C-alpha cells in the first residue's frame, strides 16, 4: 500500500479541490482528510459516516473544591497560565500535563481524559474515507491526524486498497508533519504569488528533511506567468518534478458551490484534463491506484 499526501504550505491554493479529484479518479483508494480543524473535503465527497470514535487527545485538570485548601501551588507551577486567580481551570489553556496534580498537597486535582473531537470512518461514492473534526479551539490536532491516518491504514488493508490519498492542512507545523510522516510521496500545490513561492520553499525543505519524494503542482498559473516561470526554474534547480500546471478557471468555484469536484462537474475542461494528466503521473510514480 502506498500513501500520497497533498499539501501546500500556504492555505487556499487548491489542495482539497485537487485531493477530491484524485479520490474520484483513483477508484480503489482510501481518502483521508488530515485538516482536522477546518476540514472541507467532505463537502466535495459527501461521505456517509459508518463509524464515529471519540478522540481523547489529552487530559484535563479537574479541581475538587471540597478538598482544595487554596494554597495556590497549582497556579504558581502551571506553565500554561491555565489556573486563574480564583483557582478555576481554564480548559482551553490546560495542556493536561499533570503538574498541578503533582504539586497539590491536598490531592484536590485529578486528571481526566477529555474528548477533543471525533474521528469518522465513512463511505463515499468512490470508496472509503477517514476524517475527523477537532472540537472548536481544541489542541492536539497532530495526534488526531495520526489517529485518522491509522484508521485509513487499517481500512486500506481490510478493503485491499493499494493507495491512501491524504489531504493535508496548511502550514508546516505539527499537523502537517503528522500528515507526511511515512508517506511515499507528497504533492505540494502552490500558486504563482510571492507568498505561494515562499511557502512552497518551506514545504519542500520540510519534505526534504523527512526524506519524502516531492512533486509540485502550480495552480492558477496564469494569474502571474512570470512567477510561474520562477517556480519552474526553482523546481528545476532543486530537481523537483512539476507534474501539473493548472490554469485559473471560475468553473472550479462553480463546481464547489454545487458540491462537486471539477472532474465530475466539467470533465472536458482544461483544468480537468490537467488534473487527470497529473493524476496519471502521480499514480505511475506510486505504481498503484490507477483505474
Amino acid at each position, binding site marked *: 500500500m502506498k500513501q500520497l499526501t497533498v499539501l501546500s504550505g*500556504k492555505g487556499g491554493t487548491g489542495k482539497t479541490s485537487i485531493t477530491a479529484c484524485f479520490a474520484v479518479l483513483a477508484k480503489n483508494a482510501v481518502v483521508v482528510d488530515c485538516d482536522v480543524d477546518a476540514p*472541507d473535503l467532505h463537502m466535495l465527497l459527501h461521505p456517509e459516516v459508518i463509524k464515529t470514535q471519540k478522540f481523547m487527545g489529552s487530559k484535563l485538570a479537574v479541581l475538587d473544591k471540597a478538598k482544595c485548601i487554596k494554597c495556590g501551588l497549582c497556579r504558581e507551577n502551571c506553565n500554561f497560565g491555565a489556573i486563574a486567580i480564583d483557582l478555576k481551570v481554564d480548559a482551553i489553556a490546560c495542556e493536561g500535563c499533570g503538574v498541578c496534580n503533582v504539586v497539590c498537597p491536598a490531592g484536590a486535582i485529578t486528571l481526566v481524559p477529555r474528548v477533543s473531537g471525533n474521528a469518522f470512518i465513512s463511505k463515499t461514492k468512490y470508496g472509503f474515507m477517514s476524517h475527523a473534526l*477537532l472540537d472548536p*479551539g481544541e489542541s492536539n490536532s*497532530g495526534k488526531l491526524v495520526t489517529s485518522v491516518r491509522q484508521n485509513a491504514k487499517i481500512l486500506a488493508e481490510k478493503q485491499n486498497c493499494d493507495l491512501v490519498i491524504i489531504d493535508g492542512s496548511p502550514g*508546516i507545523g505539527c499537523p502537517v*508533519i503528522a500528515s507526511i510522516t511515512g508517506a511515499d510521496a507528497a504533492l505540494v500545490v502552490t500558486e504563482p504569488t510571492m507568498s505561494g513561492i515562499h511557502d512552497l520553499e*518551506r514545504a519542500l525543505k520540510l519534505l526534504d528533511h523527512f526524506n519524502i519524494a516531492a512533486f509540485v503542482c502550480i495552480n492558477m498559473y496564469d494569474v502571474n506567468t512570470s512567477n510561474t516561470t520562477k517556480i519552474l526554474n526553482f523546481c528545476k534547480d532543486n530537481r523537483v518534478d512539476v507534474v501539473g500546471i493548472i490554469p485559473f478557471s471560475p468553473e472550479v468555484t462553480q463546481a464547489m458551490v454545487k458540491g462537486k469536484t471539477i472532474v465530475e462537474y466539467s470533465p472536458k475542461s482544461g483544468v480537468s484534463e490537467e488534473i487527470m494528466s497529473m493524476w496519471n503521473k502521480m499514480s505511475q510514480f506510486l505504481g498503484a491506484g490507477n483505474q
Partner: protein
Amino acid sequence: MIVSVASGKGGTGKTSVAVNMALSVGNVQLLDCDAEEPNAYLLLHPEMTKKEAVYTLIPKVDRNLCNTCGECTKFCQFNAIFVASENILVFPDLCSSCGGCAIICPRKAITWEKHRIGTLNFGANDGVAIVYGELDVSKPLAVPVIKAVKKQIKEGANVIIDSPPGTSCPFVETVSGSDFCILVTEPTPFGLHDLKIAVEVLRKINIPFGVVVNRAGMGDKKVYEYCGKESIHILLEIPYERRIAELYSKGIPFGSEMPEWVEKFQVLFSKIKVLAKK
C-alpha cells in the same frame, strides 16, 4: 487597541487585509503570528533591523544523578522523556515545557536547557513596525513562537495581528487577548464552513468579531445569509477582481496602487474601534 485578522480557511486574504489596513491606518504595530508560513513581510517590504532566536525550555538530565528510575517517563504526558534500560532520552520536539519531570524527579537530576525552535524578526516600513515569528522548518510547535511574537506588543499602541489559518491552538493563542477579531472569508462553501467553526471559537472565548468578505462575487450568497441570521457584522467587501489578485501575486498591497481603498481600510478600522471591547 489590538485587532487580530483570522479566517479558519487558509488563503482567504487575511494577510492582505492585515497589511492593507496597517498601511492605511499608519503608526501601527503589525505582528505576523502565522509562524509556520509568515507572509506579511512579503507584502510590507520592511527594512529588517533585528533578528532573535526563539527557544523553548527542555529537560537536561544530569547523568551522574539520574538512576534511570523512570518516574519522569511515567509522568510525562507527551512522551518527551524516555528511560530505556540504563539510558535516558529526551525528545525536544515533543516536550511541552511543563516542568513536571524536574518536579517529580526524586534525585533532582533534571534542570533546564534552551532548545531553538524559530526566530523573531523586527523591521519597519511606511509607519508600520512589523514583528514576525518564523518557526524553523521541521519543528512542530508554533505556539511558543506565537507567544514570543505577542510578547512584543507595545502597550497603548494600535496593534494588528495576522493570524495563522485553522481554528485550533495556534489560532486561539494568536487571537486571545485581542479587543476585536476580523474574520476574513470568501463566499464559497469552504469559506463558509470554516468561518462557522472560527465563529464558534471566538464566541467561546468571548472576543468581539466581524466579517470581511473577500473575493465578493465569486461563489454563492450563503455567507451573507449566515451572517444575517447570526447577526454578524459584515464590515467590508473586497470584490473578486483580477487586478487585486495580480497585485497580490507580485507582493504589492492593493491599497498602494488603488488609493480609493486607503479610505475604506481607515473606515474599517474606525468601525472596529466602535465595536471593540472598551
